[in-house]
């Protein structure tokens, strides 16, 4: 079948490619709702380093979506099933390595085409089935699975004193991470540190919120989650180092384009553990769906989603990327091309 792929060729320029799509031993999925990630926006705006742009483009963007099974040559899924594709394409890896860190693995919309296509062909094991969850929410499953992955690694690695946790970052990642922590540790005392009071106002389910310039000097936290990324990374990590109790764990989740300078003297003195987290695997997707099946969690998630107009043309694609720069949290849209 001839498939249409919408590739970013240079910042803010898309080309329409027609491909002979082979779907033997694959599941053919029609993307339904998509969501934009900062990574997509960085490619679209040309904010990645020029050598990275040259190496990765042309490429179809978007790795967060849900879709409908239209044809399954593997016999695993029923036609019409609502599914979420897993963008990670892992290679063989030892059991002690998570699939998202496997050497040689690749990722949709980072090095290979993402989901901005008419149809996507996926191996059956790279899909998870969803039910009773609105498609607008399902579109951000991948994003939630990242926080689930970080929480899973935290539970495996952090020392057992987990009374007071803090999340640095009041954006989408900070919000989802805080919500996941509330889900996996209902009784933990959760503090969120951010730069924007209007965004912090959304975090109704945590115990305390502070603007970064107003953090009480007396604050002491057992463990921290860094969800800022970008230029704010250095300030956030050094702040975490300052407020962490000895041998606390700092989960690094924000992506920075530049190298980050941190106060290693205090890291050594306090014996702080840093754990880098990126992307997620199948199990994280399944756990994300469990969280999303709870009606109160759906309401919290819904509050950070802005549904833009359906995308039916290239100019609509430009429109959603523009919208995404002004909405405070996540932009989702119905893919109708």
């Amino acid at each position, binding site marked *: *079948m*001839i498939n249409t792929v919408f590739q970013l060729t240079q910042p803010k320029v898309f080309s329409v490619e027609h*491909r*002979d*799509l082979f779907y033997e031993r694959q599941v053919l999925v*029609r993307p339904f709702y998509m969501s934009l990630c900062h990574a997509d926006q960085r490619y679209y705006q040309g904010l990645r380093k020029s050598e990275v742009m040259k190496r990765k483009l042309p490429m179809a963007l978007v790795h967060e979506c849900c879709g409908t099974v239209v044809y399954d040559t593997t016999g695993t899924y029923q036609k*019409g099933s609502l599914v979420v594709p897993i963008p990670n394409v892992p290679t063989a890896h030892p059991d002690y390595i998570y699939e998202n860190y496997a050497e040689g693995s690749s990722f949709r919309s980072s090095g290979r085409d993402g989901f901005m296509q008419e149809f996507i062909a996926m191996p059956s094991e790279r899909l998870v089935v969803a039910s009773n969850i609105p498609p607008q929410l399902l579109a951000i499953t991948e994003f939630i699975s990242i926080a689930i992955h970080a929480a899973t690694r935290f539970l495996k690695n952090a020392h057992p004193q987990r009374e007071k946790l803090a999340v640095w970052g009041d954006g989408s990642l900070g919000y989802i991470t805080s919500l996941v922590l509330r889900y996996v540790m209902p009784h933990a005392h959760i503090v969120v540190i951010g730069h924007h009071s209007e965004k912090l106002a959304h975090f109704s389910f945590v115990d305390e919120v502070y603007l970064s310039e107003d953090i009480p000097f007396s604050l002491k936290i057992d463990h921290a989650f860094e969800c800022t990324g970008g230029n704010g990374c250095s300030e956030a990590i050094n702040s975490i180092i300052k407020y962490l109790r000895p041998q606390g764990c700092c989960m690094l989740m924000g992506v920075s384009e530049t190298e980050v300078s941190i106060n290693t003297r205090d890291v050594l003195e306090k014996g702080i553990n840093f754990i880098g987290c990126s992307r997620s695997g199948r199990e994280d997707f399944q756990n994300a769906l469990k969280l999303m099946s709870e009606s109160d969690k759906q309401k919290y998630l819904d509050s950070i989603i802005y549904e833009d107009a359906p995308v039916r043309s290239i100019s609509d694609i430009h429109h959603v990327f523009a919208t995404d720069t002004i909405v405070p949290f996540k932009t989702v849209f119905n893919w*109708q091309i």
Partner: protein
Amino acid sequence: MIFGAILAGGTGTRMNISSLPKQFLPLGSKPVIIHTLEKFLTSGCFDHVYLGIHPKWTPYMTDLLDKNQLNFPQVHITDGGIDRNRTIQNIISAIETDWGSCEEHILVTHDAVRPFVSFRVIQENVAAAQQYGACDTVISATDTIVASEDGKMIQSIPKRNYMYQGQTPQSFNMNLLKKLYLQLSHEELESLTDACKICVLQHIPVYLVRGEVSNIKLTTIEDYKIAQAMLEEKNCD
């Protein structure tokens, strides 16, 4: 019910590169008509898809369905007629034989040799035919249209903003189309080669669905070369 009608009644070999009718020529990994059929099937819009095939080529089409593992119960081969209208009429007859007549039946007719048709265009055709009774797929004219009856001198140059180029699918409430066909004389049936024109002449409103420039019709060797170039990219996900 919603029916797809893929029109491949001709045996035209105008491309002079093969004795195969153009709808059976290979494009990428598959024959042109298989790409078109796959797009119809994967759209999920249709209860059944009918292929109107020249009677000489129906065994060949059956083999193609087998080889491409598309011999599903929802795919039917019907004898094509001597022209486009007769092929559509044959398909309508086959549908009524198989499923009976119904006011709600929708028929989405499409050239087999337009394999680049998009999911959106198919979906919007179905919706428009359900809402308006008839629709045509068009793209805005980019070249200036010049009208001349003698082919020597310009008669008029219509305002380009109002000009569109017709593509397919063309979609209809099936009963409406059948009634319109019955009102035509034998001569009119032969001369009116466009089903939407039949509607317009009988004052039936026809909605416009936005087509795609890429939804090209493979008629000449140049079209075929363009289609092959469009698919040249080898890196398939």
